């Protein structure tokens, strides 16, 4: 990956300031050829501005954008080897499917018969062979999605930018399109830059994800890394579901700390992040619901962290069902995954649960919300 020729996009210290705020704050990253790169962040984090700078619709205030080692800063959008799938797709309503897909080819003065061939070929590849003469409004949401992709992919761009294109679809179709997008990306081998606020989209499709917050990248890594080794409290909270407590460090050694939460619970946690920790620091700790082992009887061996709770609510959602449990003394709440074993088939409200998990799965970060 470090070989320079395989890098499609490199951003060097790019920033974008608007009159009263900084949308993108000194970001650098590289994207290797053929990968699916997602930028994940809440709305207003600057991801759209970043994408628009890549497309050329915004000029960076400082820094450089290199595509295949060529600076793009002075290249207008229509000259960049970059195409974009817009949030609402922006299929031209005055043109039919064929004309939409052929639009970019006509701009490159491709001969007419070749346009016809290439349009037919790309329609075939996205599974819509023969719908060239349809009008845009005759297509379903999923079909439009594929036409919007085909319209870009027919031009063989170095980089394909996608601006939350699945946002407008209903849930079922969105699940389906996630897989389809990933497969299409693999098939075409084009480098995708995908922005979204939906962590599940990012996790499913991406080779690499950058988590963005307040104009900066919090962490760049594989979905696995982000999920299991979040670099910051923001990433731990934003990617996947977690139980989250705030508390103070009682004691600390080189790798672990003992934290007493504001609920009055006490946990052993693993030190995460770059900052040093010592007794008295305010921290946040994160535990994933699925990392907690749930038993109806007290386990024989002791573990790092344990709690005895009563079932408050069962949130039934098939394989993703969860239990919200309450620790009696403190009243603190915790969410755990409902095990799909016969033991739990008749679980009732008020039943006692024994929860255990390891220090390794209890992630502790310095609480930054106070400083901010």
């Amino acid at each position, binding site marked *: 990956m470090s070989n320079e020729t395989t890098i499609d996009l490199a951003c060097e210290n790019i920033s974008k300031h608007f009159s009263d705020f900084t949308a993108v704050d000194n970001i650098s990253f590289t994207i290797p050829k053929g990968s699916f790169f997602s930028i994940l962040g809440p709305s207003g984090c600057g991801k759209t501005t970043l994408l628009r700078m890549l497309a050329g619709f915004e000029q960076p205030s400082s820094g450089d954008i290199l595509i295949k080692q060529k600076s793009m800063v002075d290249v207008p959008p*229509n000259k960049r080897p970059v195409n974009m799938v817009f949030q609402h797709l922006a299929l031209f309503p005055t043109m039919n499917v064929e004309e939409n897909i052929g639009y*970019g080819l006509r701009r490159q003065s491709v001969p007419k018969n070749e346009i016809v061939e290439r349009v037919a070929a790309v329609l075939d590849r996205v599974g819509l062979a023969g719908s060239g003469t349809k009008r845009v409004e005759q297509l379903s949401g999923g079909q439009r999605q594929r036409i919007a992709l085909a319209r870009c992919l027919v031009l063989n761009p170095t980089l394909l930018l996608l601006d939350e294109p699945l946002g407008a679809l209903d849930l079922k179709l969105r699940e389906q399109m996630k897989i389809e997008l990933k497969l299409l990306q693999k098939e075409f081998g084009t480098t995708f830059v995908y922005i979204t606020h939906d962590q599940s989209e990012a996790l499913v499709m991406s080779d690499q994800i950058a988590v963005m917050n307040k104009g900066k990248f919090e962490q760049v890594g594989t979905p696995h890394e982000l999920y299991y080794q979040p670099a910051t409290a923001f990433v731990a909270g934003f990617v996947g579901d977690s139980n989250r407590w705030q508390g103070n460090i009682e004691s600390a050694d080189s790798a672990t700390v003992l934290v007493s939460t504001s609920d009055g619970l006490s946990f052993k946690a693993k030190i995460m992040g770059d900052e040093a920790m010592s007794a008295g620091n305010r921290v946040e700790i994160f535990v994933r619901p699925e990392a907690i082992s749930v038993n109806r009887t007290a386990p024989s061996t002791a573990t790092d962290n344990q709690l005895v709770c009563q079932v408050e609510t069962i949130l039934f959602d098939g394989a993703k069902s969860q239990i919200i449990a309450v620790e009696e003394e403190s009243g603190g709440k915790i969410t755990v995954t409902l095990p799909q074993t016969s033991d739990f088939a008749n679980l009732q409200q008020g039943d006692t649960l024994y929860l255990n998990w390891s220090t390794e799965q209890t992630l502790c970060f310095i609480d930054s919300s106070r400083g901010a």
Partner: protein
Amino acid sequence: MSSLRVTSPFKLGLWLLLAPLCLWLVLLIILPHLELLVFSFTEPEDGSFTFGFYQEFFLEPLYWRTFVRTAVMSIMATILTLLIAFPVAFYIAKMLKGRSKGIVFAMCLIPFWVSELVRTFGWMILLRESGVISNFLQWSGMSAGPVELLYTDATIMLGLVYTSMLFMVVPLVSTLDSLDDSYIEAGYDLGGTNWNVLREIVIPHAVPGIVSGCIIVFMLSLGNYLTPVLLGGKDSLWFTEQIYTQFITRFNWEQGSAFGLLLLLLSSLIVWAGLKLSGQSFAKTMG
């Protein structure tokens, strides 16, 4: 039967609701036109039926030439207005945001706060031989003597375009406003130049606005009376002037009626031809 009973009160209500509109249509639009129609076919001496007043239009070259001239100049004024109004409308709809958009739009409206007569006199003050522009040209040494800018066909054109601008800008702004910026960006993103984007994305989208603006401006120019008469000077021949003359100075209502109906008919034909040429339907444009 039962369905009839259910719908008829509703229909009655609908008709009652439409009654003022129908009354207005019949009393103020249809009846006067029928009246004109009857007039135009009646010989005033003995009340008999005659085609003479229509014949007069086609046999007297002055009349149909005036009509052709009026139509051609109106078409030219329409095209010119479109060419000038389009960039203005695009600028208002797409380049300006928020308050400045409102301000520029209002600036387009301001000339219409005064009557057409006053606006036309304004132009006369500017353009006449002893007027502001002529004096400026002499003062600045660009011209040795007084320059007469009034009383030419170009002046008529200027007046017509100025008078019509708003009626082109408004429909254009509203259609261009409805064009999402992402279409334009997609047009560029896929490799289009300014011209490509304009030609393939902006104009096709704006066609309904262009056509309705053109119809309004064409009809306004064709039916204009003051501007051609005041700015045109001694050679200004405008068909509405003919109609006015027939009705008012000649007391020849029959000939005036025939001219009026011919104007209605021929201008409708031109609009129809324009719609056919641009592949639009009237309903689509006005809806």
